[in-house]
């Protein structure tokens, strides 16, 4: 499956209607004053609420901090944390740090990709899983490391990947 297909699929499933997005964004904005320095924290909080940055939310934020929409888009696309498309309910992150790399991270990623049927950066069509790689979790002494939602799993093997993902109800 191509990334485009995945993206298309996911978008139709969870797209919030414009009104809901605006209401929720306004709720978030209420605790800010509207200066440019707040842009990144606002984007972070909005992403936390929706799992990604809906387009309407970004225009609303642009008005609020009084910058052109392209500036908000520029910031949102610069930082790896921000997603412009919806992500899965479970976020699986495989570390590609050096410590993990020399201890076999590429095989952990391969195995995860194989089990989930998606590549790094993609989301399963049922919106259950998003697979990401992360530069380093800073848990290098336990390399290779994988993080499922916020739980860190250390000393990973391909067998452990199977077990962890099985427990999440997937084969």
């Amino acid at each position, binding site marked *: 499956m191509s990334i485009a297909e995945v993206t298309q699929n996911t978008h139709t499933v969870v797209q919030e209607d414009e009104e809901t997005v605006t209401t929720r964004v306004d709720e978030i904005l209420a605790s800010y004053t509207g200066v440019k320095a707040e842009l990144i924290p606002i984007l972070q909080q909005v992403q936390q609420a929706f799992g990604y940055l809906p387009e309407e939310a970004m225009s609303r934020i642009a008005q609020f901090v009084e910058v052109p929409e392209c500036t908000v888009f520029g910031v949102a696309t610069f930082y790896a944390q921000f997603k412009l498309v919806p992500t899965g309910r479970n976020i699986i992150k495989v570390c590609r740090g050096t410590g993990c790399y020399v201890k076999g991270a590429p*095989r952990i990623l391969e195995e995860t990709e194989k089990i989930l049927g998606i590549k790094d950066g993609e989301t399963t069509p049922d919106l259950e899983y998003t697979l990401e790689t992360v530069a*380093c979790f800073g848990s290098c002494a336990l390399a290779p490391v994988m993080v499922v939602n916020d739980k860190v799993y250390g000393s990973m093997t391909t067998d452990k990947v199977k077990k962890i993902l099985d427990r999440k109800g997937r084969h």
Partner: protein
Amino acid sequence: MNFEEIKKQAMSNWEAMQNSGKARILIGTGTCGIAAGAEDILETLREELGKNSIEADIIQVGCIGLCYAEPLVEIVKPGMPGVFYGNLTPELMAEIVRDYLTADNPRPDLALGTRGEGTINGIPRLFDLPVLKPQVRIALRNCGNIDPTDIHHYIANGGYEGLSEVLRMKPQEVIDEVKKSGLRGRGGAGFPTGLKWQFCHDSPGTQKYIVCNADEGDPGAFMDRAVLEGDPHAVLEGMLIGAYAIGASEGYIYIRAEYPLAIQRLRTALEQMEKCGLLGDNIMGSSFSFHIKIKEGAGAFVCGEETALMASIEGNRGMPRSRPPFPAQSGLWGKPTNINNVETWADVSAILQKGSGWYASYGTEKSKGTKTFSLVGKVMRTGLIEVPMGIPMREIIYGIGGGIPDGKNFKAVQTGGPSGGCLSASFLDSPVDYESLASAGSIVGSGGMVVMDEDSCMVDVARYFLTFTQLESCGKCIQCRWGTKQMLDILEDIVSGRGRDGDIELLLELSEAVKNGSLCALGGTAPNPVLTTIRYFRDEYEAHISEKRCPALVCKALVSYYIDSEKCQGCGICARACPAEAIKGGKRMVHVIEQDKCTKCGTCLDVCPAKFSAVVKISGEPVVAPTEPVPVDSKA
């Protein structure tokens, strides 16, 4: 309440805890402890204490650095030294509670070591073990010893005494003290900290800023995370001291969002400081006022660069700008700004507490003090270490680290992350300090230290780092944006068997261009992994290019697998496991890998029973195996 009263209360709390007559159990619950299973251990511990009706204080501490032994617990019984137990499982934890806490058997068979006054027969002293003996813990002084969520623990161990002293000094005296200590920036560049402060202090302006750079982005490095999780006040006190010396009233901590626990610990610490009058207006009753805000990074490696970091705090894309003007003249919102790294700040608070002379007594002439490193990769004892500058690399890898596991040979050590280099065995007896690492083509960097054995291909490692820097290049400078891409393309070619004569020279030429044509250190140092691997492991590049051979058997395109017909017993395990269905065989038949179908995933090698060990991995030589399955018995 003034500081003296707070301190008195902290001391009396601390002493009450020491003399409570109850056992104290310290458990490491930093991110790595939790990942290793500390939460399960904690649960078992609570259950077992309850079941056996034992009253004990459980204290959750930060990382003591023995990551290889996580989950790790220290049990301190009244009148006894603390006993460390490592690699715990819930079952072992339950056993230890029964044997040592309900009875008096400290289980020397399970104990790692003791610390504190007194000895226990059969258990070595922890700090006499090879892993800890060469270490000097300054930035990590409290990590693993105190509860990082309790400011009283920090204060009872000398915390904020440096600050209270500083507030009685003139700002210039504070700067002079830091200068005398010889402390250099621990974030990577090694610029003298006192001098940096002086520049910012001398800059005209009433509004100045202090920034703590906690955007620890080097893959393979976690020193700053450990300090922030295990002893946040050490860093915060350092920031207060710096702010006072420079004349700043506002500070920022720029921390990567990948460190949720560290962020949480910082927030708790800031709240407690405010309550104790150690943050806000008129700190410790003086005229000094200071406020700190936390800014979470959003996942951009380049934001570790100071001008990019400031752009990010201001709400912009994190792109570096040219210097001058330096942040000391024109930083955040155009105001004089001083940025130091987490470890530097933690060192500052120790220096102002114990004196510059004490700090400068460690290290070498030009590299004073200690440095933390995250020792990871192919080494027996992975962990977080702090050593005096100038210690020989061999002592770190073989002494502290215990050497290379599985009887393999040392091949390289990578220091300084993507900005650093890979050093060969010839460097093992050189001292680890700013100067000697630089002369070897690498850098001290923030402190990542990744050990590699014979199973690592150095060309592949160079490719790995270039993939990283190429991805993280902000795109502002063309030499960095496209130069790293071109270099990566060449390296991809080499590892895929498409290397050509002249590729090495081309890489060297591009390296120069990228170094010279980039504004910031990301581009300026991006070629280092390539340059050092060419310098120390040129033969590996040549083997890939001219012989299409990967000596470490790593590069997929250059390796083949086959089944040794002498050894195969026809069990069929490999054929069933092969995801590409590339293995032909049958019951009691010598199995055969169809080379054109094989995806080189290595599954057959993993699953072939050790008693047969029939799957062979080769590179650069022809496959010598039958092309069709034959009966096992017909081999002879």
